[in-house]
């Protein structure tokens, strides 16, 4: 939990302060100094701590700017899908009946679509860009939000404090916002972290397949993709962004579990 938060906060800080942190321009090509290995290699130098890529761009700078892209896509997609899924799930859970039938049907439809294939198809048709990837992932990842919010709301709806709020004269929207939402929000946080991590991985996968964000943007998935041809002799080209991805996703998940434990009402004393 603490390790997770430290890593996530560090990555967020790096992403926000990228222009200050990066030693070089991530787009500057120096064809004379291509594929310089990182500093721990005997051929490396302190000039390029993590080496350079096949176009001679500073790898550390690209990694730092890539954190921006990953977080932007992860958070953007999770926010869009969170709004869609929470709305649908809470409505279905609270009102039940027809509303629930429609939402359950939509969830089933959504679950029967393979995310990566649909995302690939859409990006292939409309073209890849940051906005397109965020939107497509946002429109595809709401199912878990809807499922979890539906079942949590179903559970809260039958609590007597909801009946008490209605008897006191609260409007339906007030009951939903003031009584139901605060009691499902810790589940929402956990799902949000899972989906941020999920979206980051999917972005990497799409970019790796050449259908995510487009070069020369420094996305971690794109970096792995660009490095894959040189994997044999310059393995750092893929291990560095790969490890960065792995650490970030792991840290987000750890942090989500921790936040859930902290926000549970039983822990308030």
């Amino acid at each position, binding site marked *: 939990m603490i390790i997770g938060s430290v890593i996530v906060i560090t990555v967020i800080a790096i992403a926000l302060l990228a222009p200050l942190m990066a030693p070089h321009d991530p787009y500057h090509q120096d064809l004379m100094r291509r594929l310089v290995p990182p500093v721990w290699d005997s051929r490396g130098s302190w000039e390029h701590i993590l080496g350079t890529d096949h176009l001679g761009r500073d790898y550390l700078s690209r990694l730092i700017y890539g954190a921006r892209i990953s977080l932007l896509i992860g958070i953007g997609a999770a926010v869009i899908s969170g709004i869609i899924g929470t709305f649908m799930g809470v409505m279905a859970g609270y009102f039940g009946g027809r509303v629930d039938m429609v939402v359950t049907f939509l969830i089933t439809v959504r679950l029967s679509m393979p995310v990566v294939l649909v995302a690939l198809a859409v990006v292939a048709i409309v073209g890849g860009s940051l906005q397109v990837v965020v939107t497509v992932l946002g429109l595809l990842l709401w199912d878990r939000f809807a499922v979890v919010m539906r079942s949590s709301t179903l559970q809260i709806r039958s609590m*007597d*404090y909801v009946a008490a709020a209605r*008897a*006191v*004269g*609260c409007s339906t929207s007030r009951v939903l916002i003031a009584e139901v939402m605060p009691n499902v929000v810790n589940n929402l946080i956990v799902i949000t972290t899972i989906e941020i991590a999920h979206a980051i991985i999917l972005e990497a996968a799409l970019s790796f397949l050449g259908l995510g964000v487009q070069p020369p943007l420094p996305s971690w998935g794109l970096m792995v993709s660009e490095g894959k041809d040189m994997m044999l002799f310059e393995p750092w080209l893929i291990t560095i962004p790969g490890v960065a991805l792995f650490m970030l996703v792991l840290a987000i998940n750890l942090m989500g579990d921790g936040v859930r434990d902290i926000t549970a*009402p039983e822990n*308030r004393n």
Partner: protein
Amino acid sequence: MSDVMINASNVTRNFSISRGMFRGKKTLRAVNGVNLTVKRGEVLALVGESGCGKTTLAKILLGLLPQTAGSITLCGKPINEVPRLELARLVQPIFQDPYSSLNPRKSIGSIIGLPMHVQGVEDSHAIRRQVETTMDLVGLPSRLFGSYPNQLSGGQRQRVAIARALVNRPQVIVCDEPTSALDVSVQSQILNLLSDLRKELNLTYIIISHNLAVVEHIATRVAVMYLGRLVEEAKTTELFARPQHPYTVALLESVLTPEPSLGIPNTQLGASYPNPIDPPNGCAFHPRCARAMPQCSTQAPNGTRLGQAFVECHLYGDESH
């Protein structure tokens, strides 16, 4: 004559029960043609076995559940036409389980103050003052104002629920088994509190309970429900001294069993409680009735007035028609 607070006539509530995909739906009559009149200052106890429709009736009286048929007036106004906020000022609930009736995310102060907020009171000092007055009234120390429900005991939580119900000084309180989720030692405290508050604030109560000792202690009148119908209604002293309906007789005998306070009374009625989806023909009670007659299984009894009381049984009244 004291004024009528609640008048329910022929109130019915059906639930449609789905019995699997191909077997269609069945109607469950949770409340079936109930007539009730409650006057100001009375404490009407609603008793009956679990599943007989007490909670459903309470929810209808609170405006939380629409009735399928019949009409209810509250202080002379039809309950379905009274605006939401006005209804909330007239009638308030106290629920059985104080662990479920308080939002764990809200402080005690904001739980008790919510009814005032909802009624549009903006002045937070006024709200705080009124909340603290009400907390004092129900015996809660005002230092609990900023606490959260999980820091309170069951009895304190129930006091919070009572304070929330009373903060806007309603006329009628509907209590659905207000003590059955509490420790025995706390139950009588809460009952005494409810009694005191009634005198102090001139309240009218409808109290649901299957604990007859509680009922005898607090109620002025008792209504006995069986399978959605009111089978007997009388003054408390009258009902305990001279129960008329065989079901009431059986219920009262169960009080003499060793542990009367433990949940559902052991009515010592041979047959088990019937399935409410498929109620027996004639009088719904006849399969378990000690004094059943041939006509009981074919013909539903009509209600009969016996002075102040009411009973629905073939043993009483004029059955010649």
